[in-house]
């Protein structure tokens, strides 16, 4: 009860903002000149969410798996690349322009090509999500690792710690606020990435629902899918915030 109380006290601004947006949206659609097919009213979306004939559970499951997979891959690969870049200037000079190059490639443009190579299904979509989401982790990790006080490094060197141990015991914990910040960013990017993968070719998933219903102008269902996507995104984001809280309470920041 008190937890709920605290929660509601903390999140009433969100609730108020969302309620306000929803109300203005409904009003605009009802009284304004906005066509349902373009921007369905919140009530239609609500109906599509609960009373439509879309089997949400299965799509939700598929997409959630893809998103989690994409997020984990982006996190692991991103941290590894960030460490590599901070590790050695030679690696940095070789990798950074290459990674910038990869990251500026519009994934939507190369997605069809990518999927021809990778095939279709859950795993390629995870990969696509990871590809879209890994870059912030790389950069923030590399920057965070380099933002350590010289004194702390001296501390490690005084004890003749090998370079990798200084990374593990000093640089990486020191970079955690950066890494966790990047994970928050990547949590949302992984969501977009998985959906983009599904846009190209898929037989299920929320992205599939969007394309399918959008191509029959069934916009309210497409919006309902967007709602689910955001729910997954918010939950993943919340999980990262929670993780940050448990893992690095000393680096507490804004959620």
């Amino acid at each position, binding site marked *: 009860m008190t937890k709920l109380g605290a929660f509601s006290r903390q999140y009433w601004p969100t609730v108020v903002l969302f309620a306000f947006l929803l109300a203005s949206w409904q009003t605009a659609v009802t009284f304004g000149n906005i*066509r349902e*097919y*373009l921007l369905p009213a919140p009530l239609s979306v609500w109906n599509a969410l609960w009373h439509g*004939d*879309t*089997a949400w559970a299965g799509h939700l499951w598929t997409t959630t798996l893809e998103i989690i997979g994409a997020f984990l891959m982006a996190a692991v690969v991103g941290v590894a690349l960030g460490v590599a870049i901070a590790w050695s200037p030679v690696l940095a000079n070789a990798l950074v322009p290459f990674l910038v190059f990869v990251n500026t490639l519009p994934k939507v443009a190369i*997605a*069809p*090509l990518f999927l*021809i190579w990778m*095939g*279709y299904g859950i795993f390629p979509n995870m990969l696509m999500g990871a590809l879209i989401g890994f870059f912030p982790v790389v950069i923030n990790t590399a920057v965070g690792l380099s933002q350590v006080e010289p004194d702390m490094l001296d501390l490690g060197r005084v004890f003749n710690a090998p370079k990798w141990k200084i990374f593990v015991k000093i640089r990486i914990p020191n970079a955690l606020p950066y890494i966790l910040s990047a994970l928050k960013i990547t949590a949302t990017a992984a969501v977009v990435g998985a959906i983009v993968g599904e*846009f*190209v*070719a*898929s*037989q299920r998933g929320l992205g*599939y*629902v969007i*394309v*399918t*219903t*959008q*191509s*029959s*102008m*069934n916009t309210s*269902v497409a919006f309902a899918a967007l709602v689910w996507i955001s729910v997954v995104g918010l939950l993943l984001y919340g999980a990262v915030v929670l993780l940050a809280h448990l893992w690095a309470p000393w680096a507490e920041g804004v959620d």
Partner: protein
Amino acid sequence: QEKFTFALNWFAVGDHAAYWVALDKGYYKAKGLDVTLENSKGSGDSIAKVDTGRADAGLADAAVVIASVGRGTTVKTVGMVFDKTPLNIFSLKEKPLSKPKDLEGKTLAAPPGDSQRQMFPAFAKVNGIDPSKVSWVNIEPAAKIAAVAEKRVDGVGDYSTGLPLYEKAAGKGNVVMMPWADFGFDMYSMSIIASAKTMKDRPKALKDFLEASYMGWRDVMADPKAAMEILKKRVPEVDVEVMTPNMLIGLGLMRTDRYAKNGIGWIDEKKMCDSVDLVNAYMGLPKKVECKDVYSTEFFTKVAMPN
């Protein structure tokens, strides 16, 4: 049971009902085929899948197929879907584009891949208008309908089968069509393609697949309502309200004398070669495409059109 993957050209629409019907009714199974229908993001995507062996056969627009052959694919059209061209331009009643002359000085929108866009110079030539007086905007396929309904552009190029979608957005009776078929432009469009590998190694399977698919089409023609029910059952995301008329318009493009005479899916050599000539003339390919390289009637089996 032999695995057989068929790459559709898009996510489920009414145009795809026949394949779901054939699947649902066991026509493929009866021929020993275990068919998978796969969604794609447009003709280019489905062609790439077929050409690289990710799929054994697929659906694609003829213009894109011909261009792809010019750029090195080895796919061929092995069966026709729409005998009459669905190429068309949509506009709103309040600012109608009902004949080619109306297009001059206007702004049209279409994804660059659309056949309407690619073939527009040819269409313009046939109708004696200046294609440089029409300006085109690139848009996402998903944004087509909104673009015209909300008057961001004067018209969009899209298959005539899309009419119900446009009417849903702009209101019944508010949408004006300009079907190219009515203005002296005839060219093949939606077709079934197969890869060289499928044609060479699995001619029997391909032939069986085509026959079963045409049987699917036959059933759709015979009982559209039942067909739509099957599609809805298989793909719950489709909206029956718009996909039924969408499918019916497609059927209209197939109920031709040619199909009545030769059977569903028949490819007419002259029309096919004319289509190739148009593509050669207007799409700036690196090499000229030979008509014989783009199609084959070898795998055709006559399935009669119902009355």
